[in-house]
């Protein structure tokens, strides 16, 4: 999995050609010198049509996700890191130990090869950090103008230990809601590059695998009722979905949700609500109230979740559908519903 020096250039071309997806010599060259070199592992080395892997548990978790982020490179990550971390985190949210990924690439003719190499190397680094291997993959090349540089799809499988049962329907009134760190970094980092905003800070995306903290909770025997990573739609949307799925209400204390000053500043400037801004390395952890302190200690022991805090609690639903509400500094409660589409920056 360690990116090997042999994946460096030279390839015959410095940009992606249609022939790189054509099944011939150029395609083989791309696979060998870029993908196989970076993702090197025994399963991939078999060079077979399918990856053949041993199964280490009676139950598998499976997930897939496609990544189309614009721009391809942003402070704190790139589309490659995102493609590994996003799928790894989805596996972790089921309480699984992530094991294997597949990687499908749709490349646009003309993509600089060195961009592809950077993306693939950061995927390899993210695999190493998450403890997973990319065991099979696919490459297609589309005509210039028919793609956006590169799209990546990853699918993943992970192992579930006996007795692990992490899902929305296990959420119970009385449970505590924990948050693994400050919110909104990824959205603002991407937006700042996309819009050329000079925020006067070196704010980076929170993009990171959550395998470590989930493993810590499960190894310590904490009965985790539910996990949910925060992605598009942010903390508010993640909680709103859980409430709808689990048929419960959640109330959070808005002041307890950590928000970096640069994120707050950008949100104030653009008229956005930090609770709805995207994240790629944060999760909510729902446990019985009696387990909350121990879970917080374990989470805080992992670098990626060192900023974990308790933000609220679960109660019986009071209306037909479960609802999240946030208590503000002035005492009022406001509902946090699913958004209608993306947040749009305001005029003034």
């Amino acid at each position: 999995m360690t990116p090997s020096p042999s994946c460096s250039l030279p390839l015959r071309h410095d940009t992606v050609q249609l022939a790189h997806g054509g099944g011939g010599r150029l395609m083989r060259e791309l696979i060998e010198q870029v993908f196989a070199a970076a993702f090197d592992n025994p399963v991939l080395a078999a060079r077979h049509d399918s990856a053949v892997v041993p199964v280490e548990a009676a139950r598998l978790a499976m997930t897939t996700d496609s990544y189309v982020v614009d721009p391809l490179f942003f402070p704190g990550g790139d589309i490659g890191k995102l493609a590994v971390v996003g799928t790894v985190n989805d596996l972790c949210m089921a309480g699984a130990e992530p094991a294997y990924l597949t990687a499908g690439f749709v490349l646009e003719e003309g993509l600089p090869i060195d961009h592809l190499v950077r993306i693939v190397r950061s995927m390899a680094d993210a695999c190493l950090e998450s403890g997973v291997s990319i065991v099979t993959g696919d490459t297609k090349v589309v005509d210039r103008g028919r793609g956006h540089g590169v799209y990546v799809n990853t699918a993943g499988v992970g192992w579930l230990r006996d007795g692990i049962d992490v899902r929305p329907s296990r959420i119970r009134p009385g449970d505590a809601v924990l948050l693994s760190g400050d919110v909104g970094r990824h959205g603002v980092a991407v937006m700042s590059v996309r819009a050329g905003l000079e925020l006067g800070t070196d704010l980076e995306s929170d993009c990171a695998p959550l395998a470590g903290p989930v493993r810590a909770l499960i190894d310590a025997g904490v009965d985790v009722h539910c996990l949910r990573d925060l992605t598009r739609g942010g903390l508010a949307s993640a909680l709103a979905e859980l409430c709808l799925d689990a048929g419960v209400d959640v109330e959070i204390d808005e002041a307890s949700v950590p928000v970096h000053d640069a994120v707050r500043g950008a949100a104030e400037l653009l008229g956005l609500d930090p609770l709805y801004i995207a994240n790629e390395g944060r999760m909510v952890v729902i446990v019985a109230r009696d387990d909350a302190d121990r879970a917080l200690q374990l989470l805080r022991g992992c670098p990626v979740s060192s900023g974990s805090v308790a933000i609220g609690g679960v109660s019986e639903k009071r209306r037909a559908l479960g609802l999240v509400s946030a208590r503000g500094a002035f005492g009022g409660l406001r509902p946090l519903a699913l958004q209608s589409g993306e947040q749009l920056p305001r005029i003034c």
Partner: protein
Amino acid sequence: MKLVDEFRDPALAQRCAESIARVVTRPWRIMEVCGGQTHSIVRFGIDQLLPSQVTLIHGPGCPVCVTPLEMIDRAIAVAERPSVILCSFGDMLRVPGSRSDLLGAKSRGADVRVVYSPLDALAVARTTPNRQVVFFAVGFETTAPAIAMVAHLALSEGVHNFSLLVSHVLVPPALLAILSDPEGKVDAFIAAGHVCTVMGLDEYRPIAERYKVPIVATGFEPLDLLQGILMCVEQLEGGRHEVENQYARSVAEHGNPEARRMVESVFEVVPRKWRGIGEIPESGLGLRGAYQGLDAEHRFELGDTRAEEPAECHSGRILRGLEKPADCPAFGTRCTPEHPLGATMVSSEGACAAYFAYRRPVA
């Protein structure tokens, strides 16, 4: 966060609200003019801290909300031309025109782009010389200087493929329209701090004098708003009707002279139709003189389209302070952020959207 947290201190806010309660003896209706202020009031629950005698009325100061239906239709018509890139501030994209919104036009193939500044639109024009780039210039006096600067740059640099679809409006004529409305009952105004930062306080004095109404230029944070309300109530209880400046950390007596000069050199005052209110004389800005060459309405011969508001939408009465969002039978049922009937449900600064986000019952 510096310069924000100081103005959101709950204990100080409580003390300020208590001062208002000590001063007030009679019912008063105070209108906050700006949509940004409405958003803050509803978000932080400022109105719920006030004594029952003080009623806040939400004014027309949301640029998205008052942009007339036909202007949205024109923006869509321009955007649908194959040669055109339409650049807009983000919150205009979901505002319903008579048949569609700009997001709908985008999904049908129009090249519609969100920019954060009109300068970004000019940059698009410079880098794509073979396309026509149109900036949808919407807003009050606050955004007018930036638009004026862009018009100035485009003309002086000879950026031939850049134009402006202008729907700019002015605050004082709207206050006059509200005050002369026989149905209107506004006792005092919280004036929009950012508009006053550009324009100063001069043009509000004749209004305060003629209608015997206190006007207090006010900021946007909870403590700003509470202090602005306190200053209004003190004037009302004392029988005064003056123009005062709560937002002195930003607003100078005569505003920003450089910005005003720039606006006056590029724009002239024109009549403008306001969504939900109708045409108000001398209430808008249009390009003047040599800058008229940048007018997208002329360049693309958009003509004089007219469109009617959906009869069910009460946004006109809400924008004039005659109703609160929940008074509208469609609020939260047939009119939601997913399916807005009117623009006040679209922008985060629109009163209906603010009530929908923060005031639906949670218990």
